[in-house]
C-alpha cells in the first residue's frame, strides 16, 4: 500500500500515523518524518525568511515520488508508505513534507524513510523560492543533499 499526495493543504501527522497503522496491520515499526519550513537558509543572506513558495510539475512530481518509492520497496521490506509534499505559499514553522513508512522491523522503516527523503529532494520536480526582506530568490539544491543521495548508491554496491 502506498499513497502519494502533492497538495497545498496542511496535514495531520497523527492522522497519517494512524492510517499507516491501519494500512499495515502486521507492522512492528512505523517511522515518520515531518519537514518544517526553516526561517533561514544558510546559502543566502542572514535575512529572516518570510515566505517559501513551492512550485512543482503536476503529474511528473507524483510519478517521480512513485519511482523513489518503487526503489525503496526493492531495497527494504515495506508494508505501507505515505508521502505528502505541500506546494504553494508556506510560512516558517509550517509543515512542508511528510514521509511515513510501516514495516515489520525498525531498520527497514527508518532506512527507507531516510532514503525516500534523500531521493525525493533531488529527483522530484519541486522548486523552492524564498522571500525575505531583501527580495526573492530561487533556492539551489545543497551539495550536502546531493551527497546524501549518492551515499545510498554507494551502499547498494
Amino acid at each position, binding site marked *: 500500500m502506498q499513497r502519494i499526495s502533492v497538495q497545498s493543504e496542511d496535514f495531520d501527522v497523527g492522522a497519517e500515523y494512524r492510517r499507516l497503522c491501519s494500512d499495515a496491520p502486521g507492522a512492528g515499526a512505523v517511522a515518520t518524518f515531518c*519537514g518544517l519550513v526553516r526561517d533561514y537558509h544558510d546559502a543566502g543572506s542572514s535575512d529572516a525568511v518570510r515566505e517559501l513558495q*513551492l*512550485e*512543482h*510539475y503536476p*503529474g*511528473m512530481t507524483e*510519478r517521480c515520488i512513485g519511482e523513489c518509492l518503487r526503489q525503496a520497496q526493492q531495497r527494504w521490506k515495506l508494508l505501507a508508505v505515505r508521502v505528502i*509534499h505541500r506546494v504553494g505559499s508556506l510560512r516558517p514553522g509550517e509543515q*512542508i*513534507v511528510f514521509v511515513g513508512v510501516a514495516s515489520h522491523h525498525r531498520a527497514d522503516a527508518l532506512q527507507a524513510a531516510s532514503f525516500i*527523503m534523500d531521493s*525525493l*529532494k*533531488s*529527483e*522530484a*520536480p*519541486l*522548486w*523552492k*523560492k524564498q522571500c525575505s526582506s531583501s527580495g526573492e530568490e*530561487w*533556492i*539551489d*539544491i545543497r551539495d550536502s*543533499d546531493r551527497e546524501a543521495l549518492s551515499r545510498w548508491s554507494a551502499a547498494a554496491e
Partner: protein
Amino acid sequence: MLQIHYFASVREALGRGEEQLELPAGVTTVAELVGHLREADAAFDRLHEGSRPVLVAVNQVVANRLGKIADGDEIAFFPPMSGG
C-alpha cells in the same frame, strides 16, 4: 506539435509557463531542440549561459542531450530540483 512547459527560474526568465511549438524540421533530439530554441529566443539562449543548469524532461522523464523527441511529446525545461 510539441507542448512545452517552463518551471521556476526558467519560467520567470522567459516570462511564460507554457507554449505550443510546431516540431521544427530536422529536430529529433533534446540537443537539437535546445539549439533551435536558443537561436529563436534570446532569453532562452541567455539561460544556458548562466551558472544554473537547465534540465529537460521528455514526457515527464528527465532526458539527456541525446534523448529522442517526436511530434506530440511533452517537453519541460526547469532548474535542478530543490524540494523536500
